[in-house]
């Protein structure tokens, strides 16, 4: 098991306004799996992703990654965990606005001892002719490709994607999903994707449905579709 979550609980606020966002979540993810965390707004899926990513902390429960408990990690160890093992893709891309496409990808490459070839990634992502542009010169889809590039260039063990197609149109969304699918296949990274788009579950190996902080359903997908086959 590459990643194991045991009895994760998380709440925000105090007293009467306290909201339990995650109520006793447990699940295990295998290396190389394409996992989709599915649920409506407020179901706790992004919080769960952030806890896995080490940028938020659980109130209780245990997260074991490659047989190491995250609870034993101090700030420094958490930074190095993110640095060595994780790649992040956000809905709003979060590119550094004053760096070019290439340089944004280099931001990721710098963190890895053995980064992938930047030129190859730019080629794969279809960004070759845009590599010297800054984010504000790009369309949403192009920016998201760039953010994928930044995440995968360091060849992370786990790729965390928070609504990566949330701000994109149908066709661009499918292109982006196809890219993530290709990355998953070619580089063998584990992908954990948060989405509220029900159709995307069909391309997952493992689907976890959340509502009100509780796993309503989780299953291995036996009838996996390619991104190109998806429709919504």
């Amino acid at each position: 098991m590459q990643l194991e979550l045991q009895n994760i609980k998380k709440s925000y606020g105090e007293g009467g306004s306290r909201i339990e966002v995650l109520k006793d979540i447990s699940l295990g993810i295998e290396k190389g799996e394409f996992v989709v965390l599915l649920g409506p707004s407020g179901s706790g899926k992004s919080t769960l992703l952030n806890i896995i990513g080490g940028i938020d902390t659980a109130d209780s429960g245990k997260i074991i990654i490659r047989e190491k408990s995250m609870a034993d990690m101090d700030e420094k160890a958490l930074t190095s965990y993110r640095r060595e093992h994780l790649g992040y893709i956000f809905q709003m891309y979060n590119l550094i606005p004053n760096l070019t496409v290439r340089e944004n990808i280099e931001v990721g490459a710098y963190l890895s001892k053995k980064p992938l070839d930047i030129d190859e990634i730019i080629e794969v992502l279809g960004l070759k002719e845009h590599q010297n542009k800054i984010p504000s010169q790009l369309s949403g889809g192009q920016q998201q490709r760039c953010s994928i590039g930044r995440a995968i260039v360091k060849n992370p063990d786990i790729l965390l994607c928070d609504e990566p197609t949330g701000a994109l149109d149908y066709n661009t969304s499918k292109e982006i999903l196809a890219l993530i699918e290709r990355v998953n296949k070619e580089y063998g990274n584990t992908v954990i994707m948060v989405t509220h788009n029900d159709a995307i579950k069909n391309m997952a190996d493992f689907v976890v449905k959340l509502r009100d902080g509780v796993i309503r359903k989780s299953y291995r997908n036996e009838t996996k579709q390619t991104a190109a086959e998806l429709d919504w």
Partner: protein
Amino acid sequence: MKQNKQQQSLTGKMRKPLNKRIIRELTGDIGKYIVIFILLVFSIGFVSGFLVAGESMIKAYDESFEKYNIEDGNFRTEEKITAAQKERIEKKGVSIFENFYIEKEFDNNTKLRIFANREQIDKVCVMEGRLPDGLHEIAIDRMYADNNGLSVGDKLVSGSESYEIVGLVALSDYSALFYSNNDMMFDASAFGVSVVSDKQFAEYDEGKLRYNYGWLYDNKPQTDEEEKKVSDDLMDALANIVSLENFVPGYLNQSITFTGEDIVGDKAMMEVLLYIIIIIVAFVFGVTINNTIHKEATVIGTLRASGYTINELIRHYMSMPLIVTVIAAVIGNVLGYTCFKNVCVAMYYGSYSLPTYVTIWSAEAFWKTTAIPVVIMIFITYFVLRKKLSLSPLKLIKRDLSGKKPRAAIALNKKIRFFDRFRIRILIQNKSSYIILFMGLLFANLLLFFGMMLPPLLVHFQGIVTENMLAKHTYMLQIPAGAIDDEDELSAAFSYVFLLNKISTNNPTAEKFSAYGLKTTGEGGSRVEDVSLYGIKENSKFIHAEFDDKTVLISSAYADKYGLKEGDVITLKEPYEDKYYGFNVTGIYDYDGGIAVFMSKKHLNDIMGLSEDMFSGYFSDTEITDIEEKYIGTTVDEESLTRVSRQLMISMGNLMYMVDGFSVVMFIVLIYLLSKLIIERNVQSISMAKILGYTGKEVAALYIVPTALVVVASLLISYPILSYVMVGIFRVMLKQMMSGWMVIWLDPSVYVKMFLMGIITYAVVAVIEYRKIGKIPMSEALKNVE
């Protein structure tokens, strides 16, 4: 119509919620507003205090002419004027008044010019105590007293004589204590003026009296030009009636005019300083506003889309800078009228012997320190806001704030290390902040440089003039004017033979020289000043140069001040006659102690129509003791040569510390504000970098190093600029303000000290910024903002 009104009042109410943000903006960014506020309060307060003090002082000074009946000029004669002579002089349209004095050395190594109490002209302002009315009582100048730690009740001793100080006074014709009108600078620590009772004055040896007279015109000339003409005519007339030893018309009398000119000059300088500071602060606000608009673009776009007008939003975003400026101006003015005024008044009283003053309300000071800063602030912030907020709501919502097509990124060579490219991008991104930082640091450094450079410059000047003296002792003999009157050569010769005995010395180290005083012509509006011409004997032990019949060497100070070189021609003028002399400069003699010309004694005497053996004084290695004091006019020694630098140290010492302190504050404020802005502008990216796994140190290396580089580069670039500007300013200042010359020397160690101060200041700010970067939460990047 009614419905319209209702709608308007409803919209008015609806708009009010926006105003609530103003207080939240203030509390949310209190650190920034506090530092800006402090900077503004101090600048406005200090300038307001300075202007109020200056205006009050100028008023007291201007009024003193009438109140104390200040003379229109004075002259000194060799002998007391007879009644017949007085009558002849007064026919020239003036009234003359006796204002005799004696000069006395005191045991505290100072010299006092002692007058009898004045009742008609140049009246005395008693600042403390009373005027003397008995024997052995004296009232001394207030500033001389301050500089020598004397107060009412103390004793002043001169050999066997002792005086009780009964009062501290200001003599209206000595607001600046110039010993001689030819001096480059006054010296209120070694020289002062005083009054004694008529009874005491009558006790003095007549041989020591200086027959000084003040005059008042029957019809005052209205302009300087007219006054020059009238006084020139008077001088010619006087020279025909009496033997003049000295003639100083009021408009040229530094003891009277220097103070007024200096206060007016200071005021102008302070105003310029204030406006530069306000403009820098306005630009800091401009950058801040720009950042806020970037941050709030979507909100602004939404508000605009909902019907808010551009002007409503401009007013909203302008309110904070304006509120801060207005409050700072009000508090600054209050402080200006209270504590800062006193500091500035103390500064003036520390330099000048001014009469008592009354604080006046200065509308000018109020406008200049309140209205103009507010207008500058409105103008600059409005301009920035108008430009940004005029974008369409849609562009604002989409955060497309460039106003035009996004500009392509500047291509950077891939071979440059990634971190370096990253930093270059930050430099490009924040170029406007960095330009303001550079300009601000340049300005703060200019102030600091001025403050730190002046003391070593003065010390250095003291050093070189004392090392570089023509002789350890230079005596100028006091030869009666008649003896050198070329209109009456026979009597000149007689007087001279008679005097020769009296002015000979047996001191083996003494060497005779002849000297003659001429003046510059004041070409091109430059100041008319005295030039000493020295006639040097052959094989002089003191002046190491070869002189033939045509050799004319000018002192290095003369060459430096007027940019003269070998081959140039100098034209000099008789002080009290319309007679000109041209000299071909054949070389430069290394002497920084004064504006002087050297030639052979024979050469000088020939030109001036003096006999070959005529001489004017002695250079000597040891003190000459066998010539009666009354035949010695002036002695040039260390004391007289270092007068300028000592007085400047006293007058400007406190100001220098204040300037240093102020520039350091400005330094800190600017670096703090602008590095804070740069960090704030990149909060999202910093947060994202942390999520990606960048360590705090790496983030700091990316975001703090560029500012550090800009600070270091700004400091290094500023030094040659500052040196150039400062030398320029000093040259102009010294040339216009002072007779004589001071070698401008910039102490290299000042650069090192300034650089270290700059770096240490930055290091403090960098530590604050480092901590701030550490505190940026990763959740920042998770907000749905690009």
